[in-house]
């Protein structure tokens, strides 16, 4: 088993990548075989990811060097004796482990959901792209190298764009897909430019090695500062922070149900990249008060625009898309408060609690918004309709789906005792220390969020039976996917201390104490 854990960082990328290229071939022979291949690939990745995460949470950072066997082999020694970390190096710390668990878990649930209804011609391509999406997310989350981060960002963007346009009904998904790929390419271009600037400044691409240079110098050169702004803007755009969020409701609104959910995890991968740049690469050397302030402002704008725009939507998937923007706002708000005191060396209690809340909320956001996307996907599957003005009375026939919607609605609105409340109370109380007004806005926005989802619940599930819709619930596999998410959400809600102590704290510590990540890579 230890041998498997050693190779787990590359295996969790290699298995879905290999399966992705094998899928179209198997699809030509047997559809069942194709489904079995994809399922086995994802379940294997899930098992390896969970084992890797447990190992990292228990024993700390794990490094894997492609083409090398030990930690020392991360370095290449030049004839002059100068040693450089130039190999492809994967570094899995608490934060990476936290993120890969989210990505694989959501992909597994999304895959089960997809099996229930993706049966058209072209399903082979769907599953190939689905696996490539997973590869993109995992690669971004475990790589220790900036150029590889860019490559995986591109893999994720291209596969996501193709999946958004999977149903070409009326041209709208294609339009959303084109918008997504334009925005993603622009962000990726700026990221590449920023990587080029850092390479020009330090002759390095490894994140740990660059962080070491910045940390030793104690200040950030002009080029590296420009690179930071480019990273910040690009990853904030990809994470869906307002006012650069407009692509997000378009993409989420038109993608198939399962893909909308996996896209939420994909945006969190970009948020992870932003956290990695802020905490690990630049760390205490940056002006943490200014950067913290910027993130708080972006968070507040996202919360406010997200909830208020969601209120006037009549397309239920776009509505949830705007709610997702607001949820990203809560995470940015908490992270902003967490960054505030990073430069002081010893981070205060309220900053730590804010970071705990923010990181915990990443998991909760993916599950809560994900569950809601699955339910509305099921509603669209049964009724072929997403317009709130045309739907109604579905609780009569879609009993289980309506129960799952209530759970998702309560969780995303931060109602106790569900998971959303646990992370939001950590955020409210710690943010209050910075400014009571921010905390009040955050709480009011949560109340508005509840009002928004009550609107969907009323419009879709309440009222008399409408004769135009079939009287049946979603297929069993769809309900099973929803049940898995709902069960995790209830568990996280009832045992928040377990989650915070065992999953969230290792991630927060990995962000705040970046020394192990930096010192693991020698040389330069």
């Amino acid at each position, binding site marked *: 088993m230890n041998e498997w854990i050693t190779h787990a960082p590359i295996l969790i990328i290699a298995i879905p990548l290999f399966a992705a290229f094998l899928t179209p071939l198997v699809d030509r022979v047997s559809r069942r075989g194709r489904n079995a291949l994809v399922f086995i690939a994802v379940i294997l990745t899930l098992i390896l990811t969970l084992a890797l995460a447990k190992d990292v949470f228990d024993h700390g950072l794990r490094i894997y060097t492609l083409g090398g066997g030990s930690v020392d082999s991360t370095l290449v020694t030049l004839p002059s004796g100068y040693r450089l970390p130039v190999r492809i190096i994967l570094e899995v710390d608490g934060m990476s482990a936290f993120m890969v668990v989210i990505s694989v878990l959501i992909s597994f649930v999304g895959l089960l959901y997809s099996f229930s209804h993706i049966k058209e011609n072209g399903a082979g391509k769907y599953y190939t792209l689905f696996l490539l999406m997973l590869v993109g997310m995992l690669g971004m989350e475990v790589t220790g190298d900036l150029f590889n981060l860019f490559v995986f960002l591109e893999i994720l963007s291209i596969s996501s764009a193709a999946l958004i346009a999977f149903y070409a009904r009326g041209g709208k998904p294609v339009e959303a897909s084109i918008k997504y790929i334009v925005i993603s390419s622009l962000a990726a271009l700026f990221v590449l430019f920023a990587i080029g600037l850092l390479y020009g400044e330090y002759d390095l691409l490894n994140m740990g090695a660059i962080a070491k240079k910045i940390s030793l110098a104690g200040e950030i050169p002009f080029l590296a500062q420009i690179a930071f702004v480019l990273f910040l803007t690009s990853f904030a755009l990809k994470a869906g922070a307002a006012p650069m969020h407009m692509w997000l409701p378009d993409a989420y609104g038109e993608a198939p149900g399962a893909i909308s959910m996996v896209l939420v995890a994909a945006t969190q991968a970009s948020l992870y990249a932003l956290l990695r740049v802020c905490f690990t690469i630049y760390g205490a050397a940056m002006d943490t008060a200014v950067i913290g302030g*910027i993130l708080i402002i972006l968070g507040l704008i996202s919360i406010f625009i997200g909830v208020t725009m969601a209120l006037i939507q009549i397309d239920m998937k776009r509505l949830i898309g705007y709610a997702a923007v607001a949820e990203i706002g809560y995470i940015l708000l908490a992270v902003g408060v967490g960054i505030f005191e990073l430069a002081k060396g010893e981070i205060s209690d309220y900053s730590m609690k804010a970071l705990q809340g923010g990181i915990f909320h990443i998991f909760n956001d993916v599950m809560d918004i994900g569950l809601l996307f699955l339910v509305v996907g099921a509603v669209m599957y049964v009724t072929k309709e997403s317009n709130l003005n045309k739907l109604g009375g579905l609780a009569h026939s879609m009993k289980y789906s309506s129960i799952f919607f209530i759970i998702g609605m309560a969780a995303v609105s931060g109602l106790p005792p569900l998971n959303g409340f646990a992370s939001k109370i950590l955020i409210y109380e710690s943010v209050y220390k910075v400014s009571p007004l921010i905390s009040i806005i955050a709480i009011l926005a949560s109340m508005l969020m509840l009002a928004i989802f009550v609107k969907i619940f009323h419009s879709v599930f309440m009222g008399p039976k409408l004769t135009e819709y079939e009287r049946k619930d979603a297929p069993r596999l769809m309900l099973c996917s929803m049940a898995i998410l709902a069960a995790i959400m209830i568990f996280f809600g009832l045992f928040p201390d377990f989650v915070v102590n065992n999953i969230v704290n290792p991630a927060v510590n990995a962000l705040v104490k970046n020394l192990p990540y930096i010192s693991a890579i020698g040389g330069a």
Partner: protein
Amino acid sequence: MTLNTYGGYWSPIVWVIAFVVAFLIVYILWGMGERKYKKGEQTKPFISGTEEPSKQEVHVRGGNVYWGFTEALKGYYNLMKKMHTGIINDYVLWFIGIGAILFLVIILPEVIK
């Protein structure tokens, strides 16, 4: 099962117990209600003798929910709708604009120094 927050703690088990107790009290009170109540004639709404329209006709659709709220904030929503054009050029413009602002906020003070 207790999560320590910055200002105190959160215990889901206490909340669940409180919920169950409140539910039992409500259920007992409901059980003590009028037992002679008959379904049928007594459950129909009385609209000054006018016949009640069918449930399908009076169901409030999603677009009408919170009409008063959105009407009161018409000015804000008009602005927001203008901002959300759905045109990709505008999306890029917002990205460039925010990037420019961040450059000014982060880089400019260093340059002036």
